[in-house]
């Protein structure tokens, strides 16, 4: 693909007052436009620190971040934030507006966009996440999954290049997770959105094009879901891979490499 959308070089970060141990040490990777990258790893591996650095909430001690070719620093962060967004874990704490459409418009208001244009963008974004019917609803009437959708719509309304999900599915029930995941798949196909999802959920990771595995602030593995799940044995695995491993363990015939859920189904009924 073309030039990288996100380019991270030698990025290091240490939280003050937490000893010498750095949360992130000399991390280098790049993400191309339209790619869906999942970052996985245990608690404390530095995943969320990475997210904080990418959106400019934290300032790196050393190293650099380029977004769409432009260096992220204090002067450029406001301009760069217009084209990216992040969804955090807790659905309640990121709902600023008093109604759904109000919240989606928040980012646009900050850009001082005229009302007529805002209305179009808000309607468009809510349609993309499938919430057009709940425009006027107030947050207390929404489920966690719906609130996360609103948060995503708020970012989509900005017509962004990058969507970052920082464990955005953690507080949701399994059904909302699956629904949201299929919405994201649809979005990834329909737009040229670059998605970076930080997650514990292996099914979410399996939906990506590429996975980074982090451990103790370093990247320890980088590859397609297929490569990662067949090499990293002590990581959890998505459903299809768990099934494959069980079949193997029981001495049954099983595919000799990682398969997505669809491929697995096809293989099974052959």
């Amino acid at each position, binding site marked *: 693909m073309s030039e990288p959308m996100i380019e991270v070089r030698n990025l290091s970060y240490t939280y003050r007052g937490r000893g010498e141990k750095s949360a992130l040490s000399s991390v280098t990777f790049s993400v191309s436009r339209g790619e869906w990258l999942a970052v996985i790893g245990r608690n404390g591996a530095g995943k969320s620190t990475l997210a904080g650095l990418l*959106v*400019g*909430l934290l300032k790196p001690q050393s190293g650099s971040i380029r977004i769409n070719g432009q260096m992220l620093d204090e002067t450029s962060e*406001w301009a760069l*934030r*217009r084209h990216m*967004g*992040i969804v*955090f874990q*807790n659905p*309640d*704490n*990121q*709902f*600023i*507006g*008093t*109604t759904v*459409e*109000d919240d989606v*418009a*928040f*980012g*646009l*208001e*900050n*850009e*001082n*966009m*005229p*009302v007529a244009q*805002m*209305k179009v963008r*808000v309607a468009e974004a809510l349609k993309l996440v499938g919430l057009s019917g709940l425009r006027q609803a107030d*947050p*207390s009437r929404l489920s966690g999954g719906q609130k996360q959708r609103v948060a995503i719509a*708020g970012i989509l309304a900005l017509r962004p290049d990058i969507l970052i999900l920082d464990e955005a599915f953690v507080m949701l029930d399994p059904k909302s997770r699956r629904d949201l995941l299929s919405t994201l798949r649809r979005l990834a196909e329909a737009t040229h959105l670059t998605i970076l999802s930080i997650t514990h959920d292996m099914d979410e990771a399996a939906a990506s094009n590429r996975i980074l595995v982090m451990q103790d602030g370093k990247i320890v593995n980088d590859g397609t879901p297929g490569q990662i799940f067949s090499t990293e044995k002590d990581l959890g695995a998505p459903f299809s891979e768990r099934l494959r491993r069980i079949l193997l363990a029981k001495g049954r015939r099983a595919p000799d490499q990682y398969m997505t859920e669809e491929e697995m189904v096809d293989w099974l009924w052959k």
Partner: protein
Amino acid sequence: MNKLILGRYFPGNSLIHHLDPRAKLVAAIAFILIAFLAGNVPGLVLLWLFTFLAMALSGVGFRIYLRGVRPLIWLILFTVLLQILFISGGRTYVEWGPFTVSSFGIETAVFIFSRFVTIIFFTTVVTLTTRPVDLTDGLTFLMRPLRLFHVPVDELSMMVSIALRFIPNLLDETQKIMDAQRARGAVFGEGSLFHQMKVLVPIFLPLFASSLNRGEELANVMDVRGYRAEARRSSFRQLHWRGRDTISMLALLALAAGLAALNLLA
């Protein structure tokens, strides 16, 4: 807590619900002043009729309005009693030490009572039929001139609307913490006053801690979504002044004129 009507919003579709919040705010403030124009019995009747008309148009049940008066009833009765007992003049009915019950006293008491109650009813009409966020928008608009004196009107309005937005969350959270403490054997609302205050500490500490965390996270979200206090922002919610708003203002003006005329005639 459910009994408090003040500041509650009752969703509805009435004429008053659809009025511009600015019109309603101006009306509420104007009504407080106008209520003092009612200086004789016909004026008082007019004032009551106008109030009942507004209440009827709001489509909210009369009972709810009575609940709105309830928290203030002792204050009202106390004031009324003071008027009855201490104002003398006109015909005197009872005289007992420093207390006198006279026709003047009773008359003043009726006036005071009427003004009090109509003002409460009328302002309740406004708060019951307007979403808090619309009230905030209206108030922000009316406070715009204060910008000249460097009052951060928009920032204040953002703060108020966020605070309003999080009230249900905080109530939920308080309930959760109370339940958690109850499950651990805490008993609320019993024992001496001092004891009751002491058992609230394990509620407020976690509540404060989580509110601070929430605040920090919210600030991060606002930051990333491009909110800058000093920057110019547009507003998605727009207020529209319509014909009916002008009519409602005229109705209020007519009330004031009517009361003034009745004062002159008498």
